[in-house]
């Protein structure tokens, strides 16, 4: 099935995405881009004008979750977000991203300085946690404390460092920029960047949901087939309770995501979904590894691949910074108690 029309259910997205992700297993990045684009998966939230489906973020959730579950080695979240972020100011680029002709990525950490020179802007600085930059055509980077810039990766002055990070399927790169000149039109306003970051938190939670769900399934399967002391592991209450806690965490992630894309949701709900996903997702994947025993520590059992991805996503979204900022905003918004009635 190719996703083209209206009235689609999240479950249909999940099915299409799961199949497409499986098909991508042996393809190169560029082939994956075209394959995913053919199935309509790169333009779920982008406007019709640039070839997208113009659907709400909620429908990107099952797509990214399926990518997480299938350990897709493609910067899907970045493509989804850029297709929409660029649709106003750089529609041609957005169209190329949505159609899979152009590989685009985002540097989630660090920022660059920007100096205007006529119709151009010159960028200097370090950024990092940019997925698949080595092969990407363009890269979105944060400028100082306001806005972002889209940079072509073959520009002069760009140095892409060696891949680093825990995630094996999606390598992350640090990028040095020395006097990189870009057209002024490639600058995106602050609002576009902040919406993109907030949506990224929901999609990271979705990716973690996919990984966590897979880990729990693997752990559950192992617990019911592996026998010790003459019985399946799942006979033991310690194992049953450990799995039940993993299930509690998994449903917590799922419901927090559902709530974060609801009508009344704001930044708090989105941050909470991401943070809950990070905490529960790590606990679930680490717990799944434990239930596998020595098998869990082997390269071949895929639990570690999910664990790596969950931890990478947590760091990429700066979970501890987001948590502290959330606490700070929350504390800051509450007035000191007067002695009559403390909390209104």
């Amino acid at each position: 099935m190719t996703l083209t029309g209206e009235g689609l259910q999240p479950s249909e997205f999940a099915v299409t995405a799961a199949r497409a992700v499986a098909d991508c297993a042996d393809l190169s990045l560029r082939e994956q881009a075209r394959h995913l684009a053919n199935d309509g998966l790169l333009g779920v939230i982008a406007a019709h004008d640039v070839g997208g489906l113009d659907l709400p973020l909620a429908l990107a959730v099952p797509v990214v979750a399926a990518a997480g579950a299938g350990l897709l080695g493609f910067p899907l979240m970045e493509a989804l977000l850029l297709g929409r972020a660029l649709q106003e100011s750089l529609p041609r680029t957005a169209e190329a991203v949505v159609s899979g002709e152009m590989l685009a990525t985002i540097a989630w950490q660090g920022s660059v300085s920007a100096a205007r020179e006529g119709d151009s802007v010159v960028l200097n600085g370090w950024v990092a946690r940019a997925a698949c930059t080595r092969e990407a055509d363009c890269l979105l980077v944060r400028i100082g404390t306001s806005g972002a810039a889209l940079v072509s990766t073959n520009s002069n002055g760009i140095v892409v460092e060696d891949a680093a990070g825990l995630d094996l399927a999606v390598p992350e790169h640090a990028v040095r920029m020395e006097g990189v000149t870009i057209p002024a039109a490639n600058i995106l306003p602050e609002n576009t960047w902040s919406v993109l970051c907030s949506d990224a938190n929901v999609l990271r939670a979705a990716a973690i949901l996919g990984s966590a769900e897979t880990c729990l399934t693997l752990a559950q399967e192992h617990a019911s087939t592996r026998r010790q002391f003459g019985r399946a592991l799942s006979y033991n209450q310690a194992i049953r309770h450990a799995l039940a806690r993993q299930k509690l965490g998994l449903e917590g992630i799922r419901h927090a995501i559902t709530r974060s894309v609801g009508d009344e949701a704001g930044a708090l709900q989105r941050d909470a979904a991401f943070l809950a996903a990070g905490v529960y997702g790590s606990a679930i994947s680490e717990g799944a590894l434990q239930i596998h025993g020595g098998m869990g520590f082997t390269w071949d059992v895929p639990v570690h691949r999910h664990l790596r991805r969950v931890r990478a996503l947590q760091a990429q979204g700066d979970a501890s910074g987001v948590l502290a900022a959330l606490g700070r905003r929350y504390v800051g918004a509450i007035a000191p108690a007067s002695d009559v009635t403390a909390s209104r």
Partner: protein
Amino acid sequence: MTVIETEPPVAATGDLSGEAYRVAMRRWLRANLPASFRSDSAAFSPPTLPQSIAWEAAMYRAGLAGIIWPQAYGGHGRTLREHLIANQEIGALAMPESVNSIGKELAGPIILAVGTEEQKRRFLPAILEMRDIWCQGFSEPEAGSDLAGLRTRATRSGDIWRINGQKIWTSGAYRAQRCLVLARTGPLEDRHRGLAMFAVRLDAKGVRVRPIKSIDGRESFCEVFFDDVEVLQSDALGAPDEGWAAAIRVLEIERATNRMYRAWRFENELRHLIAACKSDPVLAQLVAERHYEVRLGEVVVDIEVLKAHVETAVDALVNGDRIGARGSLAKLHWSEAHQRFAALTLELLAQASLPLQPAVQVARRRFEAIYLQARAETIYAGTTEIQLGIIADRILQLSKGK
């Protein structure tokens, strides 16, 4: 009888829905909840029983109890979504717990599900009007987590049942008119087959109630002894032998929907804690440090996840989905998150500067009580270990076999 002066309910609240309904409920609660009932107020003094009864009856008249019960039985005939809205508003205020939550959230729904028409008309309005306060007689000395091991026996002769046995941990039995008793009609070996439910009057001959002092120094739960207590067939709820099935069915929904305000009360507590800290020079500085920003941020995330459990469960029920054992998830998450929070309140407030600010004194009084009461939250309504077992058995359906 104590009279609490409250405004009449907003005219024709029946026509309101959504945000308008929320605003009406919020206005009424904020205008009418006495300051002395609010545990975040310096004027707080725990309400007496008659005061609680009068307040809860007024809440009912204002549309804040029996929200989803049919109008024929005194209810307001509203939707579960409106029940959620009302509970969000109830939770947002530091209000005392209901003295009749067993009536409103357990006995009532069971009677609605299995009661006869006559029972519905007799029992349900009396619960909402606070004429009948109920307690729950399930646990026994030998039957706690293993409820199916209960021994209290009900034997029938003609139209009369005789009940013999003992219940324990029966919250509020000393102040209740009726006890929802789960008793055995068949042999002990039948386990959960052969259990029936009864609405037993606590002033009946042969009933003896003995309060037990709990860790907070209060006498809140009781032992209840039944010595040849006569109960009319008209007070038997549902068919004998169907007691367990009825109980489980109702408990499923109850676990997911009862005390729906919890998440929002939790938030009210967090806001109160922060407000109190900010009124103290030392604590104000502490909560602005990264360590406590992170710790308080974790509480915020816990609360958001709890709200997500509750709201998505309401959506599922409204869409007609079976709720199954899902209530165990919310109960487990809430009870543990609330305990973590309660410990954090003690830790923070212990660091207050001297002399104690009035707001810190108010907060300490409230949170010390909450800390102690929270210890029970992982015990009652099914312990943590039992909830984990339910999730493993019924949601994950893990094999127990060889």
